[in-house]
């Protein structure tokens, strides 16, 4: 119940946040927000790794975009490893047009460093 939603590590100036919870939904979103804002601190380059996430609902999507907005407009936000459901959700809501997305963490990291 109280397992962390996120694992965070620093790769130089890039904060890499890996979502550990399989569902980023209304019940996980408040903790996601709190843990993400603590983990990113003043980092202006963020990679969010969704490889372990199977499902994102509308509230989870809001939290994810909230994180993106926290580094906008000067920072960099890259989404890594979005699965089928997440990709579909992002394309249905047209958010794939405004998000930087990479298939895996290493590509996301090199993009965030650019």
């Amino acid at each position, binding site marked *: 119940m109280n397992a962390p939603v996120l694992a965070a590590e620093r790769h130089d100036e890039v904060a890499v946040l890996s979502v550990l919870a399989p569902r980023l939904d209304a019940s996980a979103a408040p903790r996601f927000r709190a843990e993400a804002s603590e983990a990113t601190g003043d980092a202006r380059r963020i990679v969010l790794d969704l490889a372990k996430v199977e499902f994102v609902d509308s509230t989870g999507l809001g939290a994810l975009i909230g994180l993106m907005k926290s580094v906008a407009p000067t920072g960099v936000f890259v989404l890594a490893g979005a699965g089928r459901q997440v990709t579909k959700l992002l394309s249905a*809501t047209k958010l794939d047009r405004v998000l930087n997305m990479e298939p895996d963490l290493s590509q996301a990291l090199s993009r965030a460093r650019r």
Partner: protein
Amino acid sequence: MDWLRSSPLSRPSQVSVLVADDDPIVRELIAAQIEALGYEVRTAEDGQAAAAAALANWPDVLVTDWSMPGMDGIELIRHLRAHCAPGRYLHVILMTTSSAAEAIGAGLAAGADDYVPKPLDMMRLQLGLASAGRLVQLQGQLQRKNQRLERAHNRLRDAYRMTRRDLQAAAASQRRLLPDPRQEGPIRFDWLCLPSNLIGGDLFDVAPRPGGGAFAFHIDVAGHGVPAALRSTFLHDRLLRAAGSGDLRQTATEISDILLEDAADDSYCTAALALFDPQGVLTLLQAGHPAPRLLRRGGGITALEEGGLPLGLIDVPVPEPLTLAFEPGDRLFLYSDGLVDCGSEPLGEDGLDALIEESSALELSVVIDRFKAAMVERKGGPLSDDVSLLVIENSR
């Protein structure tokens, strides 16, 4: 004995001890020594008297001799164990001249916690009382904690019941906001709405336009339950302004600004706003909503994929509306993602199109019944998302 002092020992005076021994000299000697350690002590001259004293005023610890006339120590222990009220604790120290394993085993079987050999080693008894005192204290803490938990549980249960009543009242008033299926200018409409937990963030309405047209909207506010419902109710009024102005982009921009201001909780909505003019032209603004379906009278379904981002999520210009022909007999299906994603076996987009196609010759109310049956069949448990569908037909 530093470890004894440093351990969280309860003050002996808070622990009451009952001493049962038929030998008056031994009894008074033990009682005096226990009292000198600071415990509260009572004495009884045999098993019968000890049982009566214990039942009248329950002790924390019983120190009893084994062999006594009438009720002996073993019988006394059995009797008190049998009469111990639920939640009460009694620690029993049995004094015995025999240190044979069978004798000690019989004492433990009867319900003794500890034994002290006779003649009495006072240090041995002191240690037994110290560990008894600690157990008594732990037992007391546990009991107080249980009582607190039970009170908290009761308060939560009452709060839950009250919240549920409030939610039911809110759900009823939210349902009253939904339009009655009817003819409105050039269109006729009907709908299906299944909120996931009493009240939901899905909202839709249809309103007449000056000059004989109609306006319709369908929105899905992120989240479920009370916050989403409050937001969608608040937005309802603003949305209906488009019926008067006919300016979908202006209304969408207003909605977006309201939600962007509320930055604290990442609130946003997906939306489809539609104007129907009497000449059979449909203007549709689509903001992150699941692709509306257009069913032509002669057959053929189009998924209206174009459009833009949800409203209130990112501060960007709202999407441009599309203009389409909407001829007599054509139908427009506006729905929330719950309709296609929800349930143990989701309907999916293919299922949606198949159902639209199959029911194309049926009356609107029958179309809605078909969708309702399909959702009930698929949901397999409580809905995880709000499900709603608004079907609009050019009825000219």
